[in-house]
């Protein structure tokens, strides 16, 4: 399993109800179901991924996160997961609002545009960064809303959200001492745990 998924896996309690946005081939949900008796749904739009989820016995709904989560009632879930998808959404702010409506807590991963290599790329070369975490050229990238850790934290504050935890790492989601010291400069990707400010502590 990818390092980021492994970290997310650890942060999800036994028996939780989980919504995985852009769930890919269902690896995370299948493993959570198997090892933690998690009940969940994955949202996905890629046909091959949907077929793979069905093969794994993962509940997958063909649905575009950009269209909202109106079909999920408030507080349906204990955790909502969004791995490497925030930056491809049309309106990440609205998606975040929706996520925090359907779940008490969200786990979100995205690449840090303020990573030092990205800054160098832009600052010295004068060109849009291309890296392990941002592998596309500017013209064909699906990443239409890139942000930095600092930007994301501001958005969370603006929406009255509390950051409970944060795991910062390199492009492979491996922890790095420098990233812990100055995450917004030395962290390439991060996994944020976010909850509503008024959210009661998890009873699980």
């Amino acid at each position: 399993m990818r390092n980021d998924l492994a970290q997310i896996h650890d942060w999800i309690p036994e028996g939780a109800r989980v919504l995985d946005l852009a769930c890919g081939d269902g690896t995370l949900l299948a493993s959570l179901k198997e090892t933690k008796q998690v009940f969940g749904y994955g949202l996905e739009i890629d046909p091959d991924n949907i077929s793979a989820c069905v093969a794994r016995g993962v509940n997958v709904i063909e649905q575009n996160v950009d269209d909202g989560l109106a079909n999920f009632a408030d507080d349906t879930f204990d955790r909502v997961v969004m791995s490497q998808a925030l930056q491809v959404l049309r309106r990440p702010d609205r998606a975040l609002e929706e996520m925090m409506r359907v779940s008490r807590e969200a786990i979100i991963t995205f690449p840090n545009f303020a990573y030092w290599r990205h800054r160098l790329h832009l600052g010295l070369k004068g060109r849009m960064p291309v890296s392990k975490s941002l592998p596309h050229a500017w013209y064909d990238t699906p990443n239409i809303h890139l942000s930095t850790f600092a930007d994301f934290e501001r958005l969370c504050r603006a929406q009255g959200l509390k950051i409970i935890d944060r795991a910062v790492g390199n492009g492979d989601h491996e922890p790095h001492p420098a990233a812990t010291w100055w995450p917004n400069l030395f962290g390439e990707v991060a996994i944020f745990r976010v909850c509503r400010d008024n959210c009661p502590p998890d009873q699980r």
Partner: protein
Amino acid sequence: MLETFTTMPDSLPPDSVGLVTPQTAHFDTPLELACGRRLEQYSLVYETYGELNADASNAILICHALTGHHHAAGYHAMSDRKPGWWDDYIGPGKPIDTSRFFVIALNNIGGCHGSTGPTSINPETGEQWGPDFPLVTVPDWVESQKRLAESLGITRFAAVVGGSLGGMQALQWVMDHPDRVGHVAIIACTPKLSAQNIAFNEVARQAIRSDPEFHDGWYSRVDAVPKRGLKLARMVGHITYLSEHSMGTKFGRDLRQDRLNFGYDVDFQVESYLRHQGDTFSTAFDANTYLLMTKALDYFDPAATAGDDLSAAMAPISCPVLVVSFTTDWRFAPSRSRELVNAMIHAGKSVSYANIDSPHGHDAFLLPGERYETVLGNFLTRAYDHACGAQATQKPSTKETSHA
């Protein structure tokens, strides 16, 4: 015999279930119907493909749509020009894999392909039931299917699968008998007909009922057939099965002869096609059955008995559900499937949903389609592993997750 003059193939396709023979099961236990009447006795004609395993755990039930029947796969004779109506999906190695599953397809009560229906003899009168045959509903069919299963020694299906009206039966199954179904696939379906759906059905019924040959449904007494009515009913129905796109691609504005005729005979190819479809159907289908089947569609509304709360109606479901829709289906559009899916999500059910990109409209559920076949096949592989105790073949490696 015409058949003897056509060339007979020496062999059937290797992925065909081959030659099949319909069977008939007779039931003497009265069937109480939703309409308040009851059938004292009835017969169901059915076909099976594949082998039932020792503990009868590998059975799949196929529920048919409006004009479907028990001949879902294979051939009745080497001279048959076409296989059963869902042959693309049923056979060895196909999504409904007969090398693993024992597949049952039947003709529903009220049908005109051998099961008790309007063309059967009413034992009380000694003549055909005709229009006097009781209106049967989707729940009635499910009850009769349950009895057929029991007669074959099957107390639990590995899966129940159906498209369109067949999907309604599949859905009814898991609401009425959740303990008897392991997996359910509901394809190109809707939780209830819209006003527009009912309107189309009513046009079809009026076409039949206003045919002078209909004789209030007693046409068989006078050896008549309301062919014109049936033809019109089929023509209007057929339009709703295709998408505007598929009709456009198939026919466009192509003329049958290279000029306009300035008359009311066929100008455009699409007219010719619809007339042909209507003509063929009018000699092959019973008018009273068509009326009855369209009413069964109209009446289907599982939410009605749950205070119009569809998710409350879904509450009994206990097995994994697959819902499939097709992008260009406007008869039962993807939004109708999503209603169903969302009601199941709201009820906390295990449901997956795929909206298959297809140009073929409602008919897509009957036609080959790579993505559709894969999704359905994957789902039924799960159904098999679950029902027949095989080690799940698609589990992600558990070693990778051992960090948790």
